[in-house]
């Protein structure tokens, strides 16, 4: 629309008017001007005549000269091009699908590898049970100690363990003594008897 507003001369406006390409409002305005201005009317009539003459001459020229190619031949040639283009396009589409199929085994291969690793780990895990570290037990003992203290007992579990350990140590020492006496005499000491 801006281009139409920028039309500089009468010829341009009249050409647009003759072609019926002016906006309705401008068309009506030009029509009114042509009606009232005889010079403009003459200009319009001359332009119209020239245009008709040139169009007529071009039409005549086309009627007596052959096109570069017979219409049917030219059409057939382009249609053949379209068919070829379509065929290639379809082929390209198919080749785009094939790699997708080829990619599938790769995906399965990856999944199979992941599954075998997982199974291997499980099997290994079944024969090697996890070793629980002794550390976490200490707080439990402490907690038990507290419980026992609350109950008013003087001996705690840890003390009990310590006692047990001492008892075990004593037992081991006594067994050592026993062994030692056996070893020295080869038999029990009977000197007191």
């Amino acid at each position, binding site marked *: 629309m801006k*281009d*139409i507003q*920028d*039309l*500089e*001369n009468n*010829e*341009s406006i009249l*050409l*647009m008017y003759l*072609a019926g*390409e002016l906006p309705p409002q401008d068309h009506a305005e030009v029509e009114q001007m042509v009606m009232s201005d005889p010079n403009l009317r003459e200009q319009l009539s001359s*332009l119209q005549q*020239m*245009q008709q*003459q*040139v*169009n007529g*001459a*071009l039409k*005549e*020229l*086309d009627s*007596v*000269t*052959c*096109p*570069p*190619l017979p*219409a049917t031949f*030219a*059409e057939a*040639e*382009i*249609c053949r*091009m*379209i*068919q070829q*283009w*379509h065929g290639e*396009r*379809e082929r390209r589409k198919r080749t785009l699908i094939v790699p997708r199929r080829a990619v599938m085994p790769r995906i399965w291969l990856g999944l199979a590898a992941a599954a075998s690793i997982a199974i291997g780990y499980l099997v290994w895990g079944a024969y090697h049970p996890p070793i629980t570290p002794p550390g976490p037990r200490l707080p439990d003992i402490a907690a038990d100690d507290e419980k026992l203290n609350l109950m008013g007992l003087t001996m705690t579990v840890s003390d009990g363990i310590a006692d047990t350990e001492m008892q075990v140590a004593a037992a081991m020492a006594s067994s050592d003594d026993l062994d030692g006496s056996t070893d020295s005499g080869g038999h029990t000491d009977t000197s007191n008897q």
Partner: protein
Amino acid sequence: MSDDRSLSMQRELVSQITAPVPQSDEALVRRLRDGEPAAGELLVKRHCTSLLRYLQRLVGSDHLAEELHQQTWTSVLENLERFNPSLGGGFKAWLYRIATNKANDHWRSRGREKIAKEGMRLISDELAPQAGAGLENTEELSKLRLAIDLLPANQRQVLLLRYYSDLKFIEIAQILGCPLNTALGRMHKAILRLRQLMSEEARGASTTP
């Protein structure tokens, strides 16, 4: 009586609805893109002859016109996915823009002078009368053809685009990449020059005994 009338009206309505509506170029392009080559063939039937004629008059050589015509359609097919009807006119404007660009590229690559010489030679080659044409008529028309070829390229383009493509001036200006006012000015000059030449011819013919 009224039943008959309503029945006939209904039939008329149905026939109007079911009558084949010619599809727009853009709809055919969409169908072609969707994999329907028959739609492309319809497009070719619509535009092939006028495009070929446009190129024939634009370059002044049958052989070159044929070559450029083929190049144009090849380009159309190659760029079909990129065609956007909302940008710069419809399919016809796009088709003629490609054809005009092909002709411009050719001129640029071969050099204007060489082409002008070649064009003149081809025009003289084509002066032989064709079947069904009167001698006088042929001579006049040959001169008209020569006059078209002698028009400055930019004036010739506007004139021929208008005549063969029947595009609006505003679309022609878009194709040529110039303001509407410039395109209209070129059109006016081209008409004046051709008319001048034709009136000279007419005067010459009337003075000869």
